[in-house]
């Protein structure tokens, strides 16, 4: 579930594929470098790994109880993730598309709220910032 290797959408899709599941929804979250992102070159992800593994299992258990016919796979990157690479991938396959979209959406929302994962933005100017999604990033390295 947690991995330093790049996330393979094809592997996630293969993991959930089954003959009776006609709808599959894949979500990828990628490291952005847009005009508002002031020259990000990558993000360094770290985690409380044992807790993150447990938390994902609880989230998947909840999703499977809510959408019992669904198959779900999750990968979260750790370590340095370059811009345009995926930091998270979630695939959900279900008999019909409603459940596939709902299960995929549920997992990403819960992951964002509950997973003990942190990110440090690495910028082209050499500065390093811990990201607080609820607030302002706090500069912790040379600016």
């Amino acid at each position, binding site marked *: 579930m947690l991995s330093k290797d790049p996330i393979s959408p094809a592997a996630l899709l293969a993991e959930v594929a089954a003959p009776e599941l006609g709808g599959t929804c894949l979500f990828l*979250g990628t490291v952005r470098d847009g005009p508002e992102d002031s020259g990000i070159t990558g993000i360094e*992800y*770290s*985690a*409380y790994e*044992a*807790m*993150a593994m*447990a*938390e994902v299992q609880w989230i998947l258990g909840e999703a499977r109880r809510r959408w019992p016919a669904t198959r779900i796979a999750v990968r*979260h990157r750790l370590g340095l993730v370059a811009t345009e690479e995926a*930091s*998270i991938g979630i695939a959900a396959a279900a008999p019909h598309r409603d459940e596939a979209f709902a299960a995929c959406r549920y997992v*990403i929302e819960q*992951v*964002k*709220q*509950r*997973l*003990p*994962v*942190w*990110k*440090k933005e690495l910028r082209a100017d050499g500065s390093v910032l*811990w*990201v*607080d*999604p*609820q*607030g302002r990033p*706090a500069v*912790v390295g040379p600016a």
Partner: protein
Amino acid sequence: MGQIRLKFFARYAELVGAEERELSVALPATVADVVRLARDEIPGAAALPERPLAAVNLRHVRLDAPVADGDEVALLPPLAGG
């Protein structure tokens, strides 16, 4: 007295200069008591917030949750997964 393994992550680990510390607390105690004690006794930990996110034995808890001898208590900076 109870023995608590206290864990720090990300920015908190940088502030404290360590990822883990042992702490002895008088029982009964809550997570809030552990945080208070840590901020008083552990060098660098005074810079931690008074009310951080916390987990006990891999589960998210509120600060009024009780702790027991041998627990692993983690103080979590604002989550940023996904």
